[in-house]
């Protein structure tokens, strides 16, 4: 079920008397393919400006999926309500822009903080309990928020959504001042930049002692306690961080599209991001990105055949994917072999 972090471990034959420091540091070094991939990703909005809106969409979904990976891939929590944080970030940023100040970066910070706060508040619920109760609680929080947003329609615009969220230009010190254009070019760079920064941040965390301890938590909670580390504290920290990043994704959505609607809280949003992450692979940093791209492609391909019934084909895809086994998706030669993973 879990993919390992990229590390030189597992090689047959020993590393002999190699310096432990070097061995420990090795996984944290940037690989050539990682650099190449990011260069390619950045090249897209630069050279293919006509796809800016698509880049924007995928970047937002990728950030959302990356945040889900934190709790699914590392803490092992199955959440069907991650949209709760996405929605809080979205509405938080939208309302902030409309009523307080339309600066995008400040709004982003506000959206992120609000959803992180929600994550912190709800974290006691997910630290205990079984898979089922956690599933219920995460779904429940999202449902409650959906209802709240619906009921307080004076504030949120209710079923019609919150229109007319206009952002002021993006001001980046030493770099410049960028107006959000209708062609979404600035938006695509903005979202991609936020995604990139989040990725860099998480990459550092994953290879730090905290990150290793999260991997250890995933492997064996009992053992983690037995070496004196707190399971609960870590889960709360990771859940809060995940909530914050999901909120950032939500904030980006409203800032770049100009409006917020109730569907930011809906079940299908939680289910879609879960699916995207599973396709890309939970438990490694690139899972969210790869998954977001694959999901978007899948969605567009299927929708071009049958716009109304795409849920059927997605459902079929899910069923087959689960029957075959998630890890075997990218190893077709193992499809016809029986037995173990």
């Amino acid at each position, binding site marked *: 079920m879990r993919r390992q972090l990229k590390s030189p471990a597992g090689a047959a034959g020993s590393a002999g008397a190699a310096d432990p420091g070097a061995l420990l540091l090795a996984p944290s070094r940037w690989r050539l393919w990682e650099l190449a991939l990011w260069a390619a990703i950045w090249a897209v909005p630069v050279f293919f400006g006509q796809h800016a809106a698509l880049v924007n969409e995928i970047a937002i979904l990728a950030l959302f999926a990356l945040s889900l990976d934190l709790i699914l891939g590392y803490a092992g929590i*199955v959440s069907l309500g991650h949209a709760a944080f996405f929605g809080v970030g979205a509405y938080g940023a939208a309302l902030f822009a409309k009523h307080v100040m339309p600066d995008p970066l400040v709004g982003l910070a506000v959206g992120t903080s609000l959803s992180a706060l929600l994550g912190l508040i709800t974290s*006691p619920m997910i630290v205990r309990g079984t898979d*089922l109760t956690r599933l219920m609680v995460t779904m*429940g929080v999202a449902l409650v928020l959906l*209802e709240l947003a619906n009921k307080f329609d004076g504030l949120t615009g209710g079923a019609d959504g919150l229109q007319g969220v206009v952002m002021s230009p993006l001001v980046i010190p030493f770099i410049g001042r960028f107006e959000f254009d209708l062609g979404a070019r600035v938006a695509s760079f903005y979202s991609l930049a936020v995604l990139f920064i989040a990725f860099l941040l998480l990459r550092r965390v994953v290879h730090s002692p905290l990150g290793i301890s999260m991997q250890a938590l995933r492997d064996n909670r009992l053992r983690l306690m037995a070496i004196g580390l707190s399971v609960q504290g870590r889960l709360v920290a990771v859940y809060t961080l995940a909530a914050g990043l999901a909120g950032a994704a939500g904030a980006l959505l409203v800032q770049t599209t100009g409006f917020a609607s109730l569907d930011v809280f809906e079940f299908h949003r939680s289910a879609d991001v879960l699916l995207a992450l599973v396709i890309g692979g939970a438990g490694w940093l690139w899972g969210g990105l790869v998954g977001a791209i694959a999901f978007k492609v899948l969605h567009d391909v299927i929708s071009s055949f049958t716009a109304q019934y795409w*849920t059927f084909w997605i459902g079929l895809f899910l*069923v087959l994917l689960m*029957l075959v086994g998630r890890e075997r998706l990218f190893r077709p030669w193992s499809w016809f072999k029986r037995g173990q993973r």
Partner: protein
Amino acid sequence: MLTLLFDGIAYGMLLFVLALGLAVTMGLMNFINLAHGAFAMAGGYILILLMQRAGWPFLACLPAAFVITAAAGALLERTIYRPMYGKPHLDQVLFSIGLTFMAVASVDFFIGSSPQNVQLPDWLRQRFEFGSGPWMLGMGAYRLFIIATCLALALGLQAVLSRTRFGSRLRAAVDDPRVAAGLGIPVNRIFLLTFAVGSGLAGLGGALGADILGLDPTFPLKFMVYFLIVCAVGGTSSITGPLTAALLLGIADVMGKYYLPKLGAFIVYVLMIAILLWRPQGLFSREGKR
């Protein structure tokens, strides 16, 4: 207010019958089956189709709904559910969501997305009233029928569970499938039967309650949450647990929607979160059960 209580009890009993199959599946096979709502929906649509297209009487459609969904459940269990048993809960969740999507889209395609109307027979449309004023108890015959049927089912199932050999084998298999298999209990067959009966009950509940609950393709997703609440709060290791949870849920929902219409379904979710915070393993589970 008594009428509300009565309505709430009817709703709760319905939820109980609907959710029972799910609770047993979870307790027995440790399988989170989010497609359970689809079986309920199937039962409702079977009722509709038989009544409207084949002209069957209401009462006859109920056992038909049970049998057909039970058969479908058995077929699916044997073919696609069984390989999923040992897999992690995440896989099971995604798998069953996928099935639900397929079911919802299929119904939408073949039958259409408008809500279906159930033509109840005349004898179920009567209404009995006792007392007057705020303490009046108004009992619709339909709801009485629902309560009576569900109660009978609950008692019957409890009897099967505690008095028959199948029941004791089932309880053994729930406690520890490996040991049970070691004792020669045909665990696979018990899983199959239990899953079939559970799905059949869902179908029956869907047919029985189609009028109250509203039947359209969004049914599985709308009500799945309620079924899961019943299982999470009531626990999956008994019949009385889900029964109590379902009644609580039904009454809370009906009363909540009446007295506080602004907050509607909201109340139920908050209540659920509060209960699960207080007792993460549900109100009735045994300690330490997964």
